[in-house]
């Protein structure tokens, strides 16, 4: 029974992907993707109940393993996938109507999105770090096609940059895994790349070799997270991908890669002491925050603005992980979920804005509130959520990260980060204000290539999806409820305190 539950998050989207491959995009398959995502979320919730009661389980001959962290990540993937796939039919309908996408392309889009979900579920469930690597690289390959879907110059360029930079980063991670495997083969009980056994035998690993391995792994998986120095692909890929894909990439994919770093940190801390990964993550976090801040200030493209803002949040995650206390890790995990929900809402909402106005420029979208009050209201709330205003859960998690930072001996870095976050908040406020408020420029509805043909009203499904995401995000901020237990279990695993 539990084996079925562990396999379901991988096999459901994989089956969905096959079905889309066979049937294509047509009326009966419209909600298939949403159903698969809902199934993934349900399996994630069921698994978190199981691991909360009984602890970790392995399945499939030791290849898959579910613990509190994996179950929590499945909930994150499932929740955001549900948002993205629920908004997909309306998005694809509008694209089909305007002639920017053919029915075949819509079918391929849905197929790839489901394959993407399956790869991410595999990445969090794999017991072996090697399989984690394979799954993360598989997400790169699948999403490359989704990014390059537009076939415009910009889309092809973004896809090229994405594959090259991410493949190089992930190749460094592979080198790190090989070196780690080498170090572990010289211990008394060679563990290969099995995470649990590696973590158990970590104190025996040769420090010199492990240091090389961990640096390569953190930089390598950090590429996929969008941490500096290998972050250049992120704004391009996230801004060029179709809205539901941007939501998934920004909300989940970054977090899935980050969970790999969390697992590596456990091994590194046991082998090298906490100092090494902390320094590495602090440097990367501050570099990422600085890059994101400087490029956000004068950003003119609103999807790129959101992409840089994702980088800021990934920097915060790295900062919290560097602090490394139980509170910090629990806050980091809650932040992953809150950021994913809010970012998905914003990317889906701005995807709708792009369809309505046909422009990506902040300056050309003015007075959205006057034309689309509901959409503008949801976007405004989404921005507030993302900036960490109460009652949304990002308020609680950012507070937790900063508190842990001051308590955990990284006060100077936390102070720098706080200043940078304030600057970003101001910048995002002013950009969002420009887009949502003020008078719409005259004749704006007739402008833009997509504007005339897009359905004038935003579909009810989209509105409900966006509102739903925000409500969940706010509810989590008021009371994390049963998640609290799961989060503390995951934090226990990741800090090595049973």
């Amino acid at each position, binding site marked *: 029974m539990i084996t079925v539950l562990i396999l379901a998050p991988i096999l459901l989207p994989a089956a969905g992907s096959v079905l889309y491959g066979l049937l294509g995009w047509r009326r009966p398959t419209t909600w298939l993707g949403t159903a698969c995502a809902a199934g993934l979320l349900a399996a994630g919730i069921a698994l978190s109940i199981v691991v909360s009661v009984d602890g970790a389980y392995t399945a499939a001959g030791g290849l898959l393993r579910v613990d509190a962290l994996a179950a929590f990540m499945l909930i994150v993937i499932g929740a955001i996938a549900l948002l993205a796939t629920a908004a997909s039919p309306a998005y694809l309908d509008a694209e089909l109507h305007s002639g920017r996408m053919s029915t075949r392309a819509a079918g391929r889009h849905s197929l790839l999105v489901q394959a993407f979900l399956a790869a991410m579920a595999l990445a969090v469930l794999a017991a072996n770090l090697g399989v984690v690597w394979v799954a993360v690289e598989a997400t790169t390959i699948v999403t490359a096609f989704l990014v390059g879907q537009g076939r415009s110059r910009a889309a092809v360029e973004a896809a090229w940059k994405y594959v090259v930079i991410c493949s190089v980063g992930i*190749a460094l991670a*592979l*080198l790190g895994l090989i070196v780690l495997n080498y170090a572990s083969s010289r211990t008394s009980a060679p563990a290969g790349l099995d995470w649990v056994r590696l973590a158990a035998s970590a104190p025996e690993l040769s420090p010199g070799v492990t240091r090389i391995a961990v640096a390569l792994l953190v930089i390598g998986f950090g590429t996929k997270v969008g941490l500096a120095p290998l972050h250049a692909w992120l704004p391009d890929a996230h801004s060029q991908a179709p809205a539901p894909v941007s939501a998934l990439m920004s909300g989940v994919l970054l977090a899935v890669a980050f969970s790999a770093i969390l697992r590596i940190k456990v091994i590194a801390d046991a082998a090298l002491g906490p100092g090494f990964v902390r320094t590495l993550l602090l440097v990367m976090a501050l570099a990422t925050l600085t890059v994101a801040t400087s490029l956000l200030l004068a950003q003119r493209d609103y999807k790129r603005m959101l992409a840089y803002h994702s980088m800021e949040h990934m920097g915060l995650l790295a900062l919290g992980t560097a602090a490394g206390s139980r509170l910090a890790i629990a806050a980091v995990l809650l932040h992953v979920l809150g950021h994913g929900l809010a970012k998905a809402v914003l990317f889906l909402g701005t995807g709708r804005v792009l369809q309505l106005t046909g422009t990506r420029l902040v300056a050309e979208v003015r007075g959205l509130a006057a034309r689309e009050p509901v959409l503008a209201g949801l976007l405004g709330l989404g921005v507030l959520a993302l900036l960490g205003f109460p009652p949304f859960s990002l308020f609680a998690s950012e507070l937790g990260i900063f508190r842990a930072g001051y308590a955990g001996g990284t006060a100077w870095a936390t102070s720098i980060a706080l200043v940078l976050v304030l600057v970003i908040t101001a910048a995002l406020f002013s950009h969002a204000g420009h887009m949502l408020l003020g008078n719409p420029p005259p004749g704006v509805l007739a402008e833009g290539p997509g504007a005339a043909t897009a359905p004038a009203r935003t579909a009810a499904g989209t509105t409900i999806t966006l509102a739903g995401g925000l409500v969940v995000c706010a509810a989590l901020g008021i009371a994390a409820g049963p998640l609290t237990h799961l989060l503390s279990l995951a934090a226990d695993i990741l800090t090595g305190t049973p």
Partner: protein
Amino acid sequence: MNETLYVQLLNLAAGAFLLAAVLVLWRRELAVIIRVFAVQGAALAGIVAVLAGHEHSAELWAVAAGVLLLRATVLPVLLLRALAGAGTAQRETAPLVNVSASLLAAAVLTMIAYAVSKPLVDLAPSPATRAIPIGLTVVLIGLFVLVTRRHALSQLVGFLLMDNGITAIGFLTTSGVPLVVELGVSLDVLFAVLVLQILTTRMRATFGDTDLDELRELHD
């Protein structure tokens, strides 16, 4: 196979492996670069075969055959096919760093590789692990090619050089990486190359050529 012959053969294969990487830096005709890459794939298969002979492992022999098939045949053929479709651009016209400076850089990278990989060799000194710095040099040279070349295909070769180097380190350190992972890695590399090849085709369709200087739409 006696010990002296094993060490000599291993050094020979590793030397050919390194030399091929340097040759890629030296030459600018893309067709030549791709052939050199195929030679490097064969040298990598040679390293694996020598290890297989030393350890009398049938599994490693099979892996050596697989490496030869993938890296000395399939990937070069894919690259050559992409080149045949590339039309006019058969040469790396203007690398960011000229050839003599690139060769000097290769020397510096080799020294860096030897310095960095010292802990790796010290952990378990043996003829095989003493060749690890060569694998690391090839990784660094691959990265260098990727950063300094502008033609999409030379960048692809740079990426594949990196991957060859990583694979070599994998075989030189242990042969113990689980088979599932090894298969997955090979498949992923193949897919990444296919994706990049498709993108090159699309780039040619939209940009006219595959010179990455054309990629200037997205920046801040």
